[in-house]
């Protein structure tokens, strides 16, 4: 079993549209949506939820007003400015428990925090593991790790060949969590200065964790000078360009129809994504 995670650094470069198309093209796979803050893959795959689980993670401090003597020690030790007027702001609280440990009146308790849900669903393309982190919650990295672990279990149980993960934007906690131990990172970029800058940073993360990477330039014809710049940068880094996908309105049209673009159109975008998937499977050594 091999796992490819689709990342980009910059948001909105086309990760989910590409993963949705891979879902339609790949045989024998499980899909994992690792963007647990703003999960969109379900809009293309239209899953039927089979299992829904709670994600309990971390704790939040709670001050019992009756016991509190207003000595102020909790406010003094809290480094997250989460306590004001002897009340805890649950959004700022990082659940470290420092206040709970030091409170001389034993007025503080730590309460378990329901920070989201995760799901195993059926789609017409195969199983999908996805999640929904609660609004303004922490621990997205742990939820991503859980999604990947469940995707792996599904793939093992059903003897599937691939895990295809739709990753989050950025380079921090949830990205590192979706990347570590994967067989390949497919980095989707666009020919804009922001796209190039963000690609360099996410590629740095792949190097840092020793994950092989391939690059796909989406909407490459929007600025061909920048596309050439990305190509020469990747050449210098020894990173292959797996595909150059042209800009085409059919991608948005397909999205509005709730369909992977490869099922919606026979334009060149579709052929490019088909070739891209073949390149990815080759790189995965299948």
């Amino acid at each position, binding site marked *: 079993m091999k796992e490819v995670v689709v990342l*980009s650094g910059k948001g909105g470069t086309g990760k989910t549209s590409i993963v949705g198309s891979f879902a339609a093209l790949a045989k024998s796979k499980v899909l994992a949506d690792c963007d647990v*803050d*703003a999960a*969109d893959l379900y809009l293309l795959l239209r899953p039927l939820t089979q299992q829904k689980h709670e994600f309990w993670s971390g704790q939040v401090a709670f001050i019992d007003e009756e016991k509190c003597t207003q000595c102020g020690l909790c406010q003094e030790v809290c480094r997250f400015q989460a306590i004001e007027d002897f009340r805890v702001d649950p959004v700022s609280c990082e659940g470290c428990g420092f206040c709970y440990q030091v409170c001389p009146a034993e007025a503080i308790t730590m309460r378990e925090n329901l920070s989201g849900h995760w799901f195993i669903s059926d789609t017409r393309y195969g199983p999908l593991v996805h999640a929904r982190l609660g609004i303004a919650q922490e621990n997205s990295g742990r939820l991503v790790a859980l999604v990947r672990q469940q995707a792996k279990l599904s793939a093992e149980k059903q003897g599937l060949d691939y895990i295809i993960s739709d990753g989050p934007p950025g380079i921090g906690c949830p990205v590192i969590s979706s990347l570590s131990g994967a067989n390949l990172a497919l980095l989707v970029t666009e020919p804009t200065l922001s796209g190039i800058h963000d690609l360099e940073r996410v590629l740095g993360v792949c190097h840092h964790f020793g994950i092989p990477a391939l690059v796909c330039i989406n909407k490459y014809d929007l*600025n061909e000078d*920048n596309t050439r710049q990305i190509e020469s940068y990747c050449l210098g880094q020894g990173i292959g360009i797996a595909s150059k996908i042209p800009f085409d309105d059919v991608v948005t049209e397909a999205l509005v129809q709730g369909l992977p673009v490869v099922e919606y159109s026979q334009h060149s975008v579709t052929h490019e994504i088909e070739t891209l998937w073949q390149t990815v499977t080759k790189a995965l050594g299948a």
Partner: protein
Amino acid sequence: MAGGRVIISVASGKGGTGKTLVATSMVLSLSDKGRVQLLDCDVEEPDAHLFLKPTFTHREAVSIPVPRVDERKCTYCGKCAEVCVYNAIAVMKEKVLIFPELCHGCGACSYLCPEGAISEEGKEIGVVESGYSNGVRFVHGKLSIGELMAPPIIRRVKQHVASEGIIIIDVSPGTSCPVVDAVKGSDFCLLVTEPTPFGLNDLVLAVELVRKLNIPCGVVLNRSGVGDRGVEEYCHRGNIPILLTIPLDIEIAAFYSRGIPLVEGIPQWRESFLNLFNKIGEILNK
């Protein structure tokens, strides 16, 4: 709006909808209106500097305090490991192991060590740089490659918020802790989206977030003309004002791809961004 200061954050839920385009064009349009500041709080992938090309005058490293154990004083009692909820410390028979990448820097271990054997040392996780560009004061943060925790850097960027004037904050995509840290304390939040099912899905999440934080919001609809009417219908139903509409336009995309702010590429847009700011002012003064 307190004491002649207004803080407007620009967020989105979905990545790549045009947050940076809006934030940079807005500050440039307002730069002759007194003190104007742009804080780029997308510290995983900061891109605003590519458009504003600031001259940096100050650079500070951002560290989080991680524990350091003086083994001459340590009795291996295990208190530190017991109080650390992040599992960043493990105490063996005659050895203390510290995992700095798991540490949140809460300080509980050093405070609670009965032997006074734990001190804290800074571990660098990124930088904050500040300077100016075209009459705009500019600050951004950059998370180091391979580091997990963006929030401490975001909080440091926000310590630079000016005491007066107009402050625009460019936020990362998503709805979890980095977004909360960036948006918190704003007087108003602009939510930039696009007229697609992905844009709508993530806008709904972003609205939920700003409502949880009790911050008034309005929408900028970017790339209008493609997709569907879902976002407009949602805003209409929910009484969320659409304050600015930017069409899908190859010329706008071309300037963006070259790192040229929209109001410099097409100066007529300046008026639209001034209007946008005035509309926000009207909402806040109601």
